[in-house]
C-alpha cells in the first residue's frame, strides 16, 4: 500500500512555472482518464489552484507509480520536459503525504493562512476524481479524512475567523458588525484603487448591490461604474452621494482631506442619523478624522485596519499549535487505519481458520445429544461463538496496536506461521 504526492506550490515554485503546470477542471478530467489508462492499478486525485498543482497517487496493492512516473505524467500533459520540471517538484510519501494533504485542506499551507477557498478547491478536486473513477479506496479514505480534519480545525480553532487582509478585516470584523444585511445598502466608492476593488468584491459576496462611483475623472468613473454594475456621478455631487450612502470606500490620491468635518456636518441632517461606515483607504486620508467622532459614523483608516490585521495575525499564530496538533492526531489516526487495513487479509483468514473447527465440534456435539431442542442448540452455538471471539480478541488487539506504528509485518508473519494461515 502506497500513498504519494508530487507537485509544486507558492512556497518554492515561481508563478511562471505554476501557470504552465496548472490544470483547468476540464484538463483535470482528461488527465485523470489518461492516468487510469497509464496506471490501471493506481489511484489519483489532481489538485490545481492558482497557488499549487499537486498530484496525489496511491496504490492499494504494490508500490504504485514512482516519482519519475508521476513527474513524467505531469510534464507530458503540458508538453514540458520532465527533467526540467523535476527539480521544481516536491515529493512526499506515506504519512508525510497524508499530513501535507490535511495541512493543505485545513488552509494552513495557503498563502493567506485560514483562507476558506482552498477547502472547496480540495472538495472539487476530490469530486472530479470520484466522477472520473480515478480515486480508489486509499484516496477516498484520505480525502474524506482531509475534509474531516479541515472541519475540525475550523471548528476547534479560530484560525479561519481571524482575517489578515485589510479588505476582509474591513468587511468581516467591522462592516458586518454594523449592518445586518447589505442588499438594501448603498455603497459609495470615491476614487479608484486595487484595495477598493477587492473590498467591493467582499461586499458583493455579502449581497451589496447598489454601487455609486465618484471620481475626478468622469471617464474613469464611468469605466469603474460599468465594471461594477453601478452608476457614476460627477465629482461635484460628492456630498449628495455621501448623504445617500451607507458604506463609503475612499481611495483618492488627494493631498488634503476631500471631506472635512464642516462639509460632513452639512449632510448629517439629510442622512437622518443612519449609520455610516467609512473605509478611508487613502494615504493621506480622504476624510477628516474628526468625522469619526460624529454619532453613527464608523470611520476606519488603512492604519486602523492594518492594526486590526496585526492583532488578528498574532491571535491566529496563537491558534496555530492547536491546529497542527489536530493535524497530527488525524494523521496518526488515518495512518493507523491504513495500516490496519493491510492486516485485513490475515485477520479474515484467522477468523475463517477458527470457524471450521468450531462448526465441526458443534456438529459432533449435536449428533451426540439429539434430544437438545432448538433453544438449547442456539445457546450452545452462541456460547461457542463467544469463546472463539474471546480467543481471537488478544491477537486482533495486538495487531491493531501494532498497526498504529506501521504495517506490522513481523506480527503478521508470526500469526501466519503460528496458525498456519494460507492464502
Amino acid at each position: 500500500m502506497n500513498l504519494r504526492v508530487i507537485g509544486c506550490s507558492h512556497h518554492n515554485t515561481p508563478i511562471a512555472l505554476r501557470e504552465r503546470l496548472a490544470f483547468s477542471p476540464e484538463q483535470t478530467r482528461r488527465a485523470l482518464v489518461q492516468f487510469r489508462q497509464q496506471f490501471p492499478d493506481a489511484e489519483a486525485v489532481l489538485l490545481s489552484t492558482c497557488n499549487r498543482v499537486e498530484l496525489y497517487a496511491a496504490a492499494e496493492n504494490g508500490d504504485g507509480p514512482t516519482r519519475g512516473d508521476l513527474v513524467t505524467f505531469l510534464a507530458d500533459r503540458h508538453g514540458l520536459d520532465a527533467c526540467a520540471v523535476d527539480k521544481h517538484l516536491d515529493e512526499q510519501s506515506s504519512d508525510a503525504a497524508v499530513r501535507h494533504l490535511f495541512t493543505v485542506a485545513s488552509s494552513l499551507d495557503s498563502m493567506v493562512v485560514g483562507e476558506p477557498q482552498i477547502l472547496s478547491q480540495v472538495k472539487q478536486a476530490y469530486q472530479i476524481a470520484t466522477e472520473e473513477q480515478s480515486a480508489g479506496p486509499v484516496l477516498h479514505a484520505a480525502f474524506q479524512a482531509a475534509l474531516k480534519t479541515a472541519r475540525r480545525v475550523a471548528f476547534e480553532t479560530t484560525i479561519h475567523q481571524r482575517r489578515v487582509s485589510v479588505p476582509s478585516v474591513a468587511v468581516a470584523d467591522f462592516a458586518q458588525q454594523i449592518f445586518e444585511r447589505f442588499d438594501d445598502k448603498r455603497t459609495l466608492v470615491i476614487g479608484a484603487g486595487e484595495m477598493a476593488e477587492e473590498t467591493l468584491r467582499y461586499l458583493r459576496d455579502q449581497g451589496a448591490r447598489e454601487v455609486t462611483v465618484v471620481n475626478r475623472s468622469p471617464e474613469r468613473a464611468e469605466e469603474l461604474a460599468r465594471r461594477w454594475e453601478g452608476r457614476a456621478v460627477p465629482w461635484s455631487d460628492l456630498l449628495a452621494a455621501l448623504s445617500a450612502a451607507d458604506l463609503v470606500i475612499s481611495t483618492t490620491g488627494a493631498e488634503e482631506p476631500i471631506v472635512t468635518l464642516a462639509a460632513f456636518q452639512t449632510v448629517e441632517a439629510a442622512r437622518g442619523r443612519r449609520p455610516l461606515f467609512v473605509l478611508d483607504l487613502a494615504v493621506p486620508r480622504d476624510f477628516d478624522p474628526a468625522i469619526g467622532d460624529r454619532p453613527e459614523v464608523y470611520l476606519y483608516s488603512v492604519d486602523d485596519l492594518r492594526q486590526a490585521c496585526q492583532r488578528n495575525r498574532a491571535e491566529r499564530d496563537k491558534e496555530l499549535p492547536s491546529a497542527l496538533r489536530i493535524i497530527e492526531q488525524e494523521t496518526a489516526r488515518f495512518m493507523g487505519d491504513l495500516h490496519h487495513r493491510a492486516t485485513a487479509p490475515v485477520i479474515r483468514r484467522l477468523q475463517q481458520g477458527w470457524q471450521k473447527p468450531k462448526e465441526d465440534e458443534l456438529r459432533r456435539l449435536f449428533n451426540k445429544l439429539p434430544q437438545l431442542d432448538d433453544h438449547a442448540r442456539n445457546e450452545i452455538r452462541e456460547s461457542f461463538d463467544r469463546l472463539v471471539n474471546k480467543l481471537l480478541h488478544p491477537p486482533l488487539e495486538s495487531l491493531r496496536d501494532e498497526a498504529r506504528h506501521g504495517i506490522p509485518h513481523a506480527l503478521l508473519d508470526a500469526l501466519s506461521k503460528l496458525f498456519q494461515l494460507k492464502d
Partner: protein
Amino acid sequence: MLSKVTVLCFAASYGVALALELTRLLFRSGVRGAVMLGFTAAGLVAHTAFLFYQGVRFNEQLHGIGSPLSSTQHWYLTAAWVLAVVYLLLTFSYPKVQFGLFFLPLVLGLIGVAHHFADPEPAARAPDARIWGLIHGGSILLATVSVLVGLAAGLMYLGQARRLKHKLPPQRGLRLPSLEWLQETNRRSLVVAMATLAVGIVSGMILNVIHHDRDKGFVPWTDPVIVVTVGLFGWLLLSSVLGLVYQPAREGRKVAYFTVVSFAFLVAALAVGLFMDTQHGGQRQNRAWRGDRPRPAATPADSQPGATRPGPSVPGGAS
C-alpha cells in the same frame, strides 16, 4: 410527579447554561453549544411543568375559580418563562451569538425575585373580573418582558458600538449581533412595551371601576404602583414619539439608553409593588407573611371556600 419539580430544578438548569455561556469567553468547545441548549431546554421543560402544576393547584385551591397568573410569584415565574423562551428562540436562530450572557441573568433575576420576595398565594376573583385580571396581568407581563429584551439588546448595542468606535477586533468568544439588528430590536421592544403597557393600564382601570362599584378591592389612583407604572408608560410613549419626530433620538445609542432608562422605571415599579405599602394587589393585607420567611407554600387546606386572597402585585393597575 409534577409536584416534585421545584424552582431550584429549573433555576439550576439555567444557571448551568449561563456558566457554560461564560466559559465561551475562555475556551472553545465542540459540544458546549449543544449541552448549553440541552440545559436551557431541560430548564424550560421543568419550568413549564412547575407553572402548569401551580396553575392546577391554584384552581383546586380556589375551587375552580383560579386562573393563570393568580399569584405574584406565578406572575414573575411566567415572565421568566417567556424570557427563557425568547432566549431559546434567539439562540436557535443565531447559534454563534452569546445571547445567554445578557438574557439568562435576567431570567435568573426574575426567578430569584419570585422565589424570595413574591407572594406565592393565589388570588380569587369574581367571574366578571377574572378575564380583566388576566388581560391586565398578561399585558403587564408582556410589557415587562419587552422592556427586559430591550435592556439586553440595549446593553449589547452599547458594547458593540463601543468596540466599533474604538476600532477593536471582535473579542474572543464574545460574538454580538450587528448594530442594525440590535437597534431594530431596541426600537421594537420599546413599541411593544408601550402598546402592551397601555393595554395593561386600561384593563387595570376597568378592573378598578368594577371594584369601585362593589366598594371592595378598589385601589386609589394615587397608589405608588399606579403612579410609577404610569410614569413608565409616559417614558415609553415619550421615547417612541421622540424617535418619530426628533432625528437625534433615532440614533442607535440613544435608543439603547432609552431602553436602559425604561428598565430603571420597570425595576422601580416592581420594587414598589413588592416592598412598599400599596393597596395594589392587596399588598397591605398581605405584608405580614414576608416577615415569616421562609413560609411553606399554601396547601389546598389553607383555603376556605369563598375565601379571597390578594391578587398578584404587578404594577400598572388594580387587581
